[in-house]
């Protein structure tokens, strides 16, 4: 096994659960999540030689995966037919499993701008400690917290208008 393969194997073993958890929150279902992660790993694998000298392989893969996930969402939005199906499905899923505020919160998180959405996904909703999440997003811990703070403000704003009645 080459050094490259070893590094990717380690990456798969160590990071897959966390990656899955986070990407799942962005794309909304398990099949797409695995697709996105596979694609991200492949891209990293393909470009490994040119990357090598640069920096942390892990944070690099995270960034690629995130971009892939957001790309997927953007593409979906473009295709009217697909979008209908998607949001219907998502709504049904949310409605079935959780109720009330949580469902609305889920939708509100999905509606956040990408930067803030990923801040919430990795900084709040994952089990990663703050500095670890920041490392993977390639920003400082401070920046991450600022983004989280801003994201929460946006969420509150959205839930307020969505809700009408404050709880």
């Amino acid at each position, binding site marked *: 096994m080459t050094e490259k393969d070893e590094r990717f194997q380690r990456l798969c073993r160590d990071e897959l659960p966390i990656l899955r958890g986070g990407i799942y929150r962005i794309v909304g279902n398990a099949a797409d999540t695995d697709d996105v992660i596979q694609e991200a790993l492949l891209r990293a694998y393909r470009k490994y030689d040119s990357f090598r000298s640069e920096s942390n392989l892990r944070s690099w893969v995270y960034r690629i995966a995130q971009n892939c996930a957001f790309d997927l969402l953007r593409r*979906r939005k473009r295709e009217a037919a697909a979008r209908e199906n998607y949001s219907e499905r998502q709504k049904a899923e949310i409605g079935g499993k959780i109720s009330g505020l949580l469902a609305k919160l889920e939708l509100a998180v999905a509606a956040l701008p990408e930067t803030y959405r990923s801040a919430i996904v990795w900084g709040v909703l994952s089990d990663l400690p703050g500095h670890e999440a920041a490392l993977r997003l390639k920003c400082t811990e401070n920046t991450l917290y600022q983004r989280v703070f801003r994201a929460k403000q946006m969420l509150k704003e959205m839930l307020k208008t969505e809700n009408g009645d404050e709880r």
Partner: protein
Amino acid sequence: MNDKILDDALTQLKAEKTPHAGEFSDAADFERKFFERAAREEALRDAMKRRSRKIFAFAAVFALAFGVAVTAAIPMVYKRSEPAIGGGGFVAEADSSEPKRDAGIEKDAPALSIAAKAVKEYKSMAVDAYAHGVCYSYKASKLSAKTKSVVACCKEPNASTKFGNIMFFDSRIYGTATAPQTRLNTEEYKDVNERPFLATATNPLSTFGADVDTAGYANLRRMILQEDRLPPANSIRIEELINYFDYDYPIPKKGELLRPCFEMGDAPWDPARKLLLVGVQAKKIPKEELPPSHYVFLIDNSGSMYGVFPMVKEAMTTLAKQLRPCDRVSMVTYGGGVSIVLDGCGDIDTLCRKIAELEPEGYTPGGEGIQSAYRLAEKHFIKGGNNRIVLITDGDFNVGASSEAELTEMVDKKRAAGIYLSVAGCGMGNYKDNKMKMLANKGNGNYFYLDTLREAKQAFVHGMTGNMYTLAKDVKFQLEFNPAKVYAYRLIGYELRELADRDFRDDERDSGEVGIGQQVTALYEIIPADAPEAVKAAAVPGQKPLKYAADSGKKSAEFLTFRMRYQKPQGKNTAEEKEVALTEIPAPQQNWQWAAGVAEFGLSLRRSKFAPKTTFGNAAKRIQANLGDDPSGSRAEFLLIVKRAAELLKK
């Protein structure tokens, strides 16, 4: 809503809305899949490398049968392991044409029936996927008598990864890597019928549109030098071979846009005939005086471009360095999806950087790409300037506004609004020649083929002024022969540019464009009025003298009258017409010698029934004797092609 509630809700969300363990496949499974795919990619890349080294020149029939068999088997494997969910675009295409004399490996009948089976398999997959709501359209059609194809467009382009197995063997998606191995040849060419001799008494007028395209030449070079095969007859457009070369024509005088010149001598392949050369030189304008330009590069970066991409990038970088401060560039890529890379950029460094970052991936939603290119062109429209989209592709528009009628209508409409379209074709195996040429014609643009880096640089940089700046549009030529001097004539090539005589002054009628400094050359075979009766009868069988023919020609000493009509590139109703009558036609010079050699090669290659005496050997001799200065080396290269073709013929 206060912070506490939100935080609580988020915590709850984190706890509750986690993916169920059962939803994901086993982590070890995931890892295995990834390494399988990675290994496949490596293998693919190795295959590419091998191809570039031209090692597998001899793709044996067995390799074909094997390749196709695997292609046919893959869908079945796929179906068993993963029932139709997921998405992506996939396409199967098989050429089931009749065996051709020089079509190489396609002769193999069993392989063809396997290919047909593969198409069937793909079709049932497409139907399946459609039924499951995975793909939003599929088309299994008989495109022509020759080509059958299945095209399926899936909702989620990203999910094409699900079709990973197929991708590897599919000629359209990652095809360039495998196409030469399996040699499922899906190139399409329009049928070309040669023009016959026409008797001057009944058809004194010959009308055709200008054509300065040179793609036919580069395409031919690719087949002969790189793929070691003689091109199919329909792919040979003799006028494009002739027009590929530079000639030494007199430069237009002050106030003239175009200037014609003529040479005539005995046809090399038949002394009873004459060969007339008509050469037209367009005005040259220095680069500094050209109007500002806005180019929109529309780049196909789908997987099938993998092999040619480095070349395209390098050629574009070279072009980028030629741009002036007043020029603007936009760039749209389509592959995994349509993305706007540059939006009216005037900074060369940014441009070069963006070019360097391009990378092929995904499949090809060409229709969407072309639409956003037009949107950008409109956004940065330079009034009175040169607004042009440059499409670089291997020619597969398989998603969206892909129906040809829709596409051409749009190109047509935008041309009227002053946005032109040039097409650079590249790639091999799934190259759609007819579609490319049609698009460029509709878009008032040129069409050139990039097969080598040298050709790409030539077209983008040296040919940039000509290829990118239109000097005159709808350029039409008409020759009127005097029946008292010319018994019959035959225009060589220009089959696709033929115009009805009455369309000459119909300015609504679209025709070819001529760029700055370009040259148009046409050759006519002529049977003189004083030729022996036997020659005349052989050329135009069954022709009898007209009973009521006007005799005015006999009083005139003129041999022919040449007319040209064109419009200025901007605006309407700007048509100009020039006429020149000739009594004496100058004897052959080097221009004529060279063009005659090229024409003889072309006629011989397409086994013209009107010039059966042509041979590669004679053509090679004439070409060798008339290489001239040849500063670009293109004439020497042509000699190489002719010699190689002669060797291939012997095999």
